[in-house]
């Protein structure tokens, strides 16, 4: 594929070894990496090169990474995956609430990062050909062996029908609509419970645990993954994303 049709990825990190590693990994998978070492450089490249996705380290020497994200969001809804340090849950939540599509914690596994990048690119119709995307929004969503039929209000796991309350169904449907993506507590509460909610993450914990029970989740290989202190994501267990 030629540069400019959605294979250009901007990588922003102040550490050259990381840039070298990611450039090589992206090139090997047919992407065209561009690199930036500072926040200012990142904003310039993001504006001039029109990348299909951005991988953004939040710890930059000149500008706060979240500020870079906000400025990019000021004119573009390009998918952004942020790289954060371990333990910075509040930063992850802030980045996601401020428009990041996903995050990966350093030190990260490159295949995992690339899987997240793939999910983020699929979720953007602008990146081309998303209408036949099986995980895109549609009346019937399938994520691995999880099937959510929204018009008929039916959810199945491995062919077994689940008896769900409306809120549990809403939670599963929301996560399935954004399969593979992390959704923060706030995003889920506002989508399922209503816009006046946002901080009641203990509700969510109760519902998520009930949903897990009904889905007969194996804690060692969950479909409904808890991102501690951040939110939840529903993954297809059979694709090697994590």
């Amino acid at each position, binding site marked *: 594929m030629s540069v400019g049709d959605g294979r250009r990825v901007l990588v922003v990190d102040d550490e050259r070894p990381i840039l070298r*590693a990611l450039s090589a990994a992206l090139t090997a998978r047919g992407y065209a990496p561009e690199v930036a070492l500072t926040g200012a450089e990142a904003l310039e490249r993001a504006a001039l090169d029109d990348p299909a996705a951005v991988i953004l380290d939040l710890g930059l020497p000149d500008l706060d990474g979240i500020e870079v994200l906000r400025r990019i969001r000021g004119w573009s809804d390009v998918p952004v995956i942020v790289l954060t340090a371990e333990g910075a849950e509040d930063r992850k939540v802030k980045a996601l609430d401020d428009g990041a599509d996903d995050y990966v914690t350093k030190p990260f*596994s*490159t295949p995992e990062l690339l899987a997240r990048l793939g999910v983020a690119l699929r979720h953007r119709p602008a990146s081309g050909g998303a209408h036949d995307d099986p995980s895109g929004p549609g009346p019937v969503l399938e994520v691995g062996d999880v099937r959510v039929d929204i018009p008929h209000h039916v959810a199945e796991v491995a062919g077994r029908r689940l008896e769900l309350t409306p809120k549990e169904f809403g939670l599963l449907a929301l996560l399935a609509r954004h399969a593979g993506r992390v959704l923060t507590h706030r995003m889920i509460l506002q989508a399922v419970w209503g816009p006046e909610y946002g901080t009641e993450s203990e509700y969510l914990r109760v519902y998520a645990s009930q949903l897990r029970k009904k889905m007969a989740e194996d804690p060692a290989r969950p479909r409904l993954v808890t991102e501690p202190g951040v939110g939840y994501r529903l993954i297809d267990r059979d694709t090697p994303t994590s």
Partner: protein
Amino acid sequence: MVRRPFGLLIGAALVVVCTLALVPVRDAVTVATPALVLVAPGIVAGLVGGRLDGVATAVLAALAFDIVFVEPYGSLDVHLVDDVVALVAFGAVALTVATLVALAADRRRSAEQRAEEILALSEDRERIHREQRRLVFEKTALEQADDARRALLRSVSHDLRTPLAAIRAITSDLRADADYDERTRHELLDVVGDEAERLDRLVANLLSLSRIEAGALVPDIQAVDLDELVTDRVRRLSRLLRDVTVATHLPPGLPLVDADYVLVDQVVTNLLENATRHTPPRSTIRIDARGGEGVVAVSISDEGPGVPPAERSLIFEPFRTGSSAQRSSGIGLAICRAVVEDLGGTISVGDAPAGGARFTFTLPIHRPTPLPGAGEVDEVAS
């Protein structure tokens, strides 16, 4: 008021004394003399004891006056109108004077007590203020120490994680059998090697830092050939230094120094790593040395932005990096200073002739150990 019983006792004693003193002359004087004299015990009792003592003494004095000095002697009877008037007047005067005197004394005493209390209170307040100031000061010091510890943890974990992140990113991908050509694969493996070396240097610095902080840094002093040390270190850092030129100018015949080889090696490593971090690619790092008054000075110069004068004294503090520096744990230069000063030298930063920073450290020239019996001439620096 603790003196109350004494007031009455003294008053009574005085009444007795005055009475006894005046008995021999009672027929030679008028009743006015004992009357005047016997007012005195009431005054004294009132002053010493208080109002009740004064009044009680005045009553005693009146009785004594009546019995001893008013005829007929030895009884309370009074016959003459003059004597009745004198007795009543005496009683009234003695009581009034004793009461007034006692009240004045009470007032003075309570005023003194209040003054003492006020003084004590203000001393208490002053002590509390001093204590408050001390606590605020201690709290600030603790907070600063806490901030420094947090800064250390943050920067060390950042520095440890950065090479680890690169290593993990590359190895996870090589294991996933990514489609790399041979050149890329080699390049990535080189990055893994470089980052592992960087971790190794950081761990060495952390170990030194903990030994320095624990006071457990005991230098193994020996004669060190700086030429040999610098040449060997530059060779070992060839991968770190591959994007720059290293120009080493150590004059032949440079004196040996008294130092710990391993520690000086760490100083040179940290200074070279610091130089590569700030000098642009394809520039030159210069290493020179010259012997001076009792010391050898070694300089390492880069072509980077240099260190502004205001930051020159701060840059050797732990966890400081120059404003233009990329973040690093900032312990490297702190270790350089701790080590060099421990070895009896100095370290400083200035401007390099070509622009950029020039770090210079000194070490004492080696003095041969005096042969046994050669006299008390040279004591070996330790």
